[in-house]
């Protein structure tokens, strides 16, 4: 394949820009060899052509000063850069850029843990710090703080937080736990947010707002700047931790369990975000589809039932935890058992009765912020599994959960795919993650998955649901569903973009935000 060039840039201009970048970061940190270097900046799970998201180069700066110099170069040549931190958000595009030819601005070398404050429970990290890095650091130093990691945990704290990712401890709303950031704007200006902008600040990691407009959120799921540092609150290690699982026998139990959860969640009886995972999600941790069904299309009900029985799983499987001193946990667990015990057929499991089950073991780790990679086992459900995630938000309401589930399941079956999904109840909302899994070796299956995803966006929008995050391929389509008042929100995004990045060099097209020179041309 011929390597793409940045849009509107000649080979001579490209080579000249690359040469200037090499002077800034060193030749070893500018990557242009498509075979040996740039393959790690592709999206292995994309559902279209590999070339659609192929970068022309990648550059890895070591510090803010180098970022400023790189931005000066790309502004001069009007070359788009696509910023990544660890680039591991597979299912949403991984490290690949929105359009071919962009240069990836890879912040992996900026991987310092700048501060951990055990007393006040926060850390300040650079974008290249992964969940594993921070966890290992805390373990090595004996610091009694927990991280809250994504599953899988090879991703980065800054990247996941700025992509509005979620975790599984009581600190699972990552952006809510973010406190202060440093950003480099397109013109090279460095901005600190919150309290760190005062001289001799000692409260940057403690208080989020400072004085004036809070602008941290502007730099998340956007392309208005390059985040180079972030504060994140960490949970003090609690005196006790009781994870539990409830298996539910009937499809309709999703409605009941969701409605029973909301008051327990609002009143902090359940401390973390409970997950309700479907049978196949859980089964895929232990078995593959072919062990139960070798036919085509969605797995038939009879096979599902046998699998559920063999693996002691429910049609839905609910996971949550309580944290704190023993009397508090005991009290909360009594309330929880009273509430959910009313569901016919519901079975409770604890570590004594479930340990050794890969599905249980990895959830137990996640709910206490212990990084792992077990969730990737899901990809073995089919051979050569790839996936993109369809992630609509709804109220934490049983009827909404059922409505979304039935809509997605029906469409998935119509297109020949299994429904594999989970619901995560936040503070008042519910994230629904439908893992659209396909054989990444099959062009036909990839196209079918792509078509299914596109129609799900429209179906969900018609029902009043929007997605919280998405793959590169669908950023524009989903942006168009946030269209109230003649797209006034996106008009506001574009006004900010034009002001802060007039040459349109920073991550053009990220989440549907385009600079004026490329707007309407995607």
């Amino acid at each position, binding site marked *: 394949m011929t390597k793409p060039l940045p849009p509107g840039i000649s080979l001579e201009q490209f080579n000249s820009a690359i040469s200037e970048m090499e002077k800034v970061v060193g030749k070893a940190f500018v990557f242009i*060899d498509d*075979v*040996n*270097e740039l*393959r*790690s900046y592709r999206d*292995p799970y994309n559902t279209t052509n590999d070339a659609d998201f192929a970068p022309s180069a990648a550059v890895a700066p070591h510090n803010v000063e180098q970022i400023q110099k790189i931005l000066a170069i790309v502004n001069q040549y009007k070359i788009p850069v696509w910023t990544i931190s660890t680039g*591991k958000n597979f299912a949403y595009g991984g490290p690949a850029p929105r359009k071919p030819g962009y240069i990836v601005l890879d912040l*992996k070398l900026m991987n310092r843990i700048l501060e951990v404050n055990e007393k006040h429970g926060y850390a300040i990290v650079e974008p290249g710090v992964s969940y*594993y890095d921070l966890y290992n650091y805390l373990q090595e130093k004996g610091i009694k703080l927990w991280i809250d990691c994504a599953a*899988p*945990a*090879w991703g980065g704290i800054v990247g996941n937080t700025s992509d509005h990712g979620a975790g599984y401890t009581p600190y699972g709303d990552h952006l809510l736990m973010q406190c202060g950031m440093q950003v480099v704007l397109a013109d090279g200006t460095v901005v600190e947010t919150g309290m760190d902008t005062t001289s001799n600040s000692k409260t940057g990691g403690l208080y989020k707002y400072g004085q004036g407009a809070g602008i941290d959120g502007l730099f998340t799921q956007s392309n208005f700047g390059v985040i180079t540092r972030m504060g994140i609150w960490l949970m003090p290690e609690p005196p006790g931790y009781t994870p539990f699982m409830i298996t539910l026998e009937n499809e309709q139990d999703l409605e009941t369990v969701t409605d029973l959860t909301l008051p327990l969640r609002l009143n902090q009886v359940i401390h973390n975000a409970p997950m309700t995972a479907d049978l196949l999600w859980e089964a895929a941790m*232990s*078995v*593959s589809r*072919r*062990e139960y069904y*070798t036919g085509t299309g969605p797995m038939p009900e009879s096979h599902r039932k046998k699998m559920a029985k063999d*693996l*002691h799983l429910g049609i839905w499987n609910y996971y949550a935890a309580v944290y704190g001193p023993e009397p508090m946990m005991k009290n909360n667990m009594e309330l929880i058992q009273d509430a959910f015990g009313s569901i016919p057929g519901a079975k409770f499991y604890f570590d004594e009765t479930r340990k*050794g*089950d*890969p599905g249980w*073991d*990895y959830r137990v780790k996640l709910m206490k912020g212990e*990084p*792992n*990679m*077990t969730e*990737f*086992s*899901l*990809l*073995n459900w089919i*051979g*050569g*599994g790839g996936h993109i995630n369809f992630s609509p938000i709804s109220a934490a309401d049983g009827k909404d959960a059922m409505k979304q589930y039935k809509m997605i399941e029906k469409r998935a079956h119509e297109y020949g795919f299994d429904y594999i999904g989970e619901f995560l109840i936040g503070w008042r909302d519910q994230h629904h993650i439908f893992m659209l899994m396909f054989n990444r070796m099959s062009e036909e299956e990839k196209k079918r998955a792509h078509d299914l995803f596109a129609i799900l966006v429209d179906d969900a929008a018609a029902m009043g649901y929007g997605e919280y995050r998405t793959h590169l391929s669908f950023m524009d389509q989903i942006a168009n569903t946030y269209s109230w008042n003649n797209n006034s929100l996106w008009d506001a995004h574009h006004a900010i973009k034009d002001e802060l990045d007039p040459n349109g060099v920073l991550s053009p097209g990220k989440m549907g935000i385009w600079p004026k020179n490329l707007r309407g041309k995607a």
Partner: protein
Amino acid sequence: MLTRRTFIKSSLATNLAIAAQPGLALGLSQYAQEDHSLLIFSDETSAQAQQFAGQLNTPHSNIEKDVGLHFDTFNRFHREQPTGWITGLTRDSDFFILEQMAATKGYRTVFSAIHETNNNTVTHQVSSSVDKAHLIADSLAQSLENWPSWLANNITSLAHHELATAQANSQAGSSTNNEYLVSWLLIPSTSA
């Protein structure tokens, strides 16, 4: 109750100091061929993967389900044996993760093959250079139940330097069923 876990066997130079994590019994040995130290991963739930690792003369194994527990092993090998090669016969997800990690450290995939067993027939789908793919697939099929041993004996000579690959399928009877494994070889770009 549960039947499947990810088991990974890793081996590397005996003199490497490994800080084993709780619950792990990391096994260490050295397998060197053509001056390349080799780090080996295998899925321990699979008899085929065990045959593969056994043929490479690795007497120890570790048993668990999370490839993340091996990131330290991987990183240490890369640091201490920068010209070393990495191979495996694993679940697809484990290969995916290791391949992605390796790519960020300058490794490239120079051989991979899918070994899929259905209805007591194993199909070998080999990705290699145009002149080699069919030969490799046929050799695997002709090795019948011993294809993992053939693979182990030849893995380091299967590297090819073209990314444009040919795929070849070959089938043979198998006593196992419903398995999907991937064999693979990663080498540092500087070795290519």
